[in-house]
Structures are given as C-alpha cells and as structure tokens.
C-alpha cells in the first residue's frame, strides 16, 4: 500500500481521500513544525485535531500547546520563532481578527510563521460559513497571503509556505487561505509526499535573527521616528522579494514532487480574451468551467486566478489583462462604503497603466451563499454589456433578495 522509509514514515503510493483541512494538517505534519499552537474555531478545528492525534500517537514530534485564545496562539508562535524554532497555527474569521495586533507584530518582527486561515464570514451577524472577508480585512498586516483552490494545493502549499517564509531574503509570515467548508470540508483524492522527500526539500529552519544563549540578542524593540520608517521599508522590500522566492520554491517543488502551481497568478485562456473574470480561491473551479462553455459558444472569455494577494502580483496581472475589454473581479468580501479589496487592488494597478478595460466588481458568496453557474454566466453577460456601454454601478452584489418595484 505504501513505501516505508527508514524512519517509519510511509509515503503513500495511492492518493488518500481527505478534506482540505486534513490536507493542510498533512502538509504541516510533513514540514515538521517544532511548535504548534492550537485554539479551535469552526471551520478550522479538524486541522488541529489531526495534528493532535498524530502527536499523541508519536507520529509527529512537535510541542503542542493548547493555548487560551488566538491572540495567545500567535503570541506563542512568535516566542517559538524568536528562538529559531519552526512554528505553525491555524485560525479563522473571529480568531484571525482577535489576533490582529499579533499579525502586525509577527510580520514586523520578521517571524516566518505559517498559519492556515479557514476563510469565514465575520460577525455581525454571526455566520460560520465561508467567505473571504476575514483575510481580506487584514491585507495590510504584512503577511504573505496565498489563496488555495483545492486540497492537493492545500497540502503542497503547506510545505512550500515554510520554504518561502524562512528564506533568508524573505523572513515573512505566510497565511494560507482555504474557503471555509467549501474547501476545508470537501473531500478529494490527494497525493501525500514521503517524509524523506519533504525533509530534503525543506531542511530545518536556521536563522541568525533569534535569541541565542551563545550570542544574546534583544528583539522586538522600539524604534522612534528616526528609525521606524527604515524598518518598514525593509519589511516591504522583503515582501516584494517573496514573489521571486515563491516562484523558485514552486519550481523546485515541481521538480521533486511533480506538481507546481505557477506563482502569483494563473491565467486561464486570457491571452486572447475580451472578457476576463479575476477571482481567487475554490470558486475558480466553477469559473473555469463557465469560461470553457462560453468559449465553446464563441465568446472570448478568460479567467485570471490570483494565488498570491500579497505580495500583489502587479506585473503578472497587467500582463494577463493587457488585451481585455472588460474585467470583472469576483470576490467574497466588501470594504463597506467602497468596493471589494481585490477589486480596489486590481483597479489601482491598471490605473497606473494605459490599459483601460471596463471594470466591474462582483461581490458574491457572502456568509456562505452559494455561487451558481448561472451567477457566473450573468457576470460575463454584464461584462459583455460593459464593453458596449459605460457601466453604472461598478460594485455589484450578486444574487441579493430585493424588491422589484420601487
């Protein structure tokens, strides 16, 4: 059934049937985190449950901390990272926002922590289902943000994330985003790499930037107006360097494991597309299918999937959209009083170029509301209409219950 390696770890010859959460747990396990901080929140719980089972069975040698809140979870990870240990945690929505100050602390502190976030709607009202408001509300927190489409990518990127985060040119924490329930709880066949192979791909974490009994340091200090800006510019540049590092890591991963994911964006039939829908996360699968149907019917449709939102893949986006006549951004969030965060980023990037497609924002899927094939086809209809006539409202909430008269 599987090949047993020298240390007893089994590499599975056949794919295992598992959920997105379990795939993240597997990837995290294979990355050998030395410290795991765990606080439960739906729909992330399975990740920490699996990890705790493996620790209990002696299959994973990690210090597993049952912390008392998400703020403490990330705080503990930072403490571990400050000693040069590899650390992992997971959260969602309310928990992500509860640790909000720690997000900035971790990125400014240059702690290469990897954290999975199960994208979930934010209260109020309370809603445990998937949307992307949580992670998109913290885009400025200095974390590398990756959006996962399926369970295989979830496992693979959980490993790649550490390689990117811990790279000496990067030293920036990474947030792996999976759509709540739709991806976290959906089962797919997933290939699980062998531990030995992962160990070669991802060696132990080494850094000079840590507290050390032989070479003491002071960390997390204050920098006044005379110095703070330079620290922030340094942080920003490190984040920008992550683009190239992520591409290199992805290529190396592909060479070793036979799967790679293409970096910051994945264009699908964009080359000669008039109408492009930009999107992120698991809904890309649905959009891809609609694009194929439209193409079969003679419509020049395309999809641009964004994998990395931070660092923002500016160049790749401009390149992919350079020929489009109308661009829609489909996302599961809104910055109240303005537009979706992804739309704002895409639009501002295009505004600095001479590319001037019609731009529409489609806000859909809030609070776990299903996005249907019909919904997506209607988006392309609206994009087509926008080519002919200047669009009125640029921000459109999809499939909203509204009275038709008055």
């Amino acid at each position: 059934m599987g090949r047993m390696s020298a240390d007893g770890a089994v590499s599975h010859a056949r794919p295992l049937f598992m959920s997105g959460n379990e795939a993240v747990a597997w990837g995290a396990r294979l990355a050998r985190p030395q410290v795991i901080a765990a606080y439960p929140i739906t729909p992330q719980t399975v990740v920490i449950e699996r990890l705790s089972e493996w620790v209990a069975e002696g299959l994973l040698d990690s210090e597993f901390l049952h912390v008392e809140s998400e703020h403490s979870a990330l705080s503990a990870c930072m403490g571990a990272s400050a000693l040069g240990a590899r650390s992992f945690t997971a959260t969602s929505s309310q928990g992500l926002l509860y640790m909000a100050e720690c997000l900035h602390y971790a990125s400014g502190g240059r702690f290469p922590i990897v954290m999975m976030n199960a994208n979930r709607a934010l209260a109020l009202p309370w809603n445990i289902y998937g949307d992307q408001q949580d992670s998109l509300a913290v885009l400025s927190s200095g974390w590398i943000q990756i959006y996962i489409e399926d369970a295989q990518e979830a496992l693979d990127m959980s490993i790649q994330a550490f390689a990117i985060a811990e790279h000496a040119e990067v030293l920036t924490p990474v947030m792996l985003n999976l759509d709540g329930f739709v991806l976290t709880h959906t089962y797919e066949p997933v290939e699980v790499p062998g531990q030995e192979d992962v160990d070669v791909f991802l060696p132990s974490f080494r850094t000079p930037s840590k507290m050390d009994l032989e070479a003491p340091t002071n960390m997390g200090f204050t920098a006044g107006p005379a110095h703070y800006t330079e620290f922030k510019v340094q942080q920003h540049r490190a984040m920008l360097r992550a683009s190239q590092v992520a591409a290199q890591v992805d290529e190396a991963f592909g060479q070793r494991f036979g799967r790679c994911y293409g970096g910051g964006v994945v264009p699908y039939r964009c080359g000669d597309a008039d109408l492009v829908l930009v999107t992120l996360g698991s809904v890309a699968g649905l959009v891809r299918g609609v694009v194929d149907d439209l193409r079969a019917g003679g419509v020049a449709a395309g999809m641009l999937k964004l994998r990395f939102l931070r660092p923002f893949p500016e160049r790749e986006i401009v390149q992919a959209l350079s020929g489009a006549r109308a661009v829609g951004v489909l996302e599961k969030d809104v910055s109240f009083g303005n537009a979706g965060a992804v739309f704002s980023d895409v639009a501002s990037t295009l505004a600095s170029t001479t590319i001037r497609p019609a731009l529409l924002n489609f806000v859909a899927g809030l609070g776990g509301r299903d996005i249907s094939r019909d919904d997506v086809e209607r988006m392309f209809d609206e994009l087509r209409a926008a080519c002919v006539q200047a669009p009125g409202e640029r921000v459109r909430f999809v499939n909203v219950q509204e009275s038709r008269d008055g």
Partner: protein
Amino acid sequence: MVEAPRARVQLPLSLSADEPFLGHKACAGCGGSLAVRLALKVLGERTFVVLPAGCMSAVGFLYPQLAFGCNAIISTFAGTASMMSGIAAAARALKLRDYHVVGFAGDGGTADIGLQALSGAIDRHENFIYICYDNEAYMNTGVQKSGLTPFGARTTTSPAGKNAMGSRGRKKDLFEIVAAHGIDYAATATVAHAHDYIRKVDKARTTVGTSFLHVLAPCPTGWGIDSDRTLEVARGAVDCGLWIQAEYEGGHYHINKSPRRFKPVADHLAAQKRFAHLGKAEIAAIEKERDGRWKRLQRLVGGG
C-alpha cells in the same frame, strides 16, 4: 530548565557581580527597575527575558540603546505569558540545557490585559518564572488606574474630586488568583526587602514548573514621593500591613512575617501624594479591608 539546579542561598557577597540590566531610561528611583535588576542578577546570563509593553520595556529597548545584556524580547501587552510559553516550548524542542525563561510585567500587564495568558500558562504548567512588578497603576502611559490600584489612590483616570475620592475599586488579590490555579510556586515580595526577594527568585529558579512572584515596586513619579523614598515606602506598606509577604508552595500557603502590631496606615498613606485627599472615613475603610485580607489569608494558611 530540564534538571532542577542545586538550590543555593544568595547573600549579597555571593550575588552575581554581573549587571545584565544597565543603561535603561527608567525614572530616578524606579522600583520596577530594581525588581528587574535584582532578579536578573540571581538568574544569570543564560536567561530568556520577556517584557510586555510597559515601563520596563519602554525604558530598556529604544533602538539603538538596548539595556538588556542577556536575551530579551518585548511581547505584546496581553501576550507576556503566551510568548513565554512559546519560548519554553521551543527551548524543549531545541533541547536547550541550563537556561531560564523569565517574564517581567507590570500590574496592568498582569492582572488586567495579561491575565488570560497568565492563567493559560499556569494551566499548562509551563516551566518558567513570571514576575509582576506592581507599581499599582498603568505608569508607563501616565498613571492610569489598573486592577491593582488600591482603594482611594489618585490616578489620572481616578482623580480625587467632588464625586469620588480617587479609585473606588479594591486591589484584585493577584496572589490568591494565581495560587487558586494550583501553581507550583508563588510568592509576594517587595524591592525593599532585598534578601527576601532574592531568596524567592532563587526558589523560583530551582522550581521545576511554574513560578510567580508579585513584587511591590513603588513608583516615585506615580505615587508622589521623592525619588529617594522608594524603599522606605515599600517597607512602610509591609509595616502597616497593606502588603503581605507570603508564599504558596506545594498547595500550602505560608505567611513570611506576621507583625504583632501594625504601624498606622495613616502615616504610610500620608507619605504619598496619591493618598493626600483621603479623610478619616477612607482610611478606616482601608484598615478594615486590610484586616479582612489578613484574616482570609490566615484562614488559607490554617486550612492548607
């Protein structure tokens, strides 16, 4: 620590000559800085120090003036005990040997915003030493009332006026809160009773498990005393019974010193401008509360 080092009695002559905490910008006469200084001389240079936002971090870590000669890191305000937990976990994972993990947090950073993390860390039986230097208000931000501000104290958010005479609340009983967790070792101390404090830091040093020290650390700036009176006022608090020196170990409470007669509370309060507005009624209330606290602790000692 993995193995408990042999306990040794610390006398001034055998106290380390090293000064791992030097060059900080604390106010002249700062009780908190003395608490940190003495503890680090006991614990030695193989120590990981965590400090949250507060006086000690604010005065010790302004790049490029970094006043800790040993490993030290600032945590978030609420995150002292959780960051310490992460450090302790990493130290185990990295199989480090012969080290200490110590945190120094103020009263606000411990009994208010830091209480959740402290509770969780004790619950997890973390192997570290948590030292709360208590100057009885949020001093770093300008003397605002905290959960450990005593009844009647004037602070910038509990001023004395027509409506209220300073702080209306009583001091949370932090020592009892911590002991109620069944912690391995807890003690109260003051910066003025140096031998006692050093002994307790040393006991924490050799405890395998979680230790907590609650140190009274007067603040000349916030208490309205001259900078040279810091230790005198700390002694005054003990002598009039407002501060009890006690320990909790192995599930038992122990009071270190029970004065047969207390010195007058009124004299101790009169020496501090933050209590200048109090009248006879308030002072009587303070004495009554003091007596109640002693009775309760004595019952715990008897019952333990």
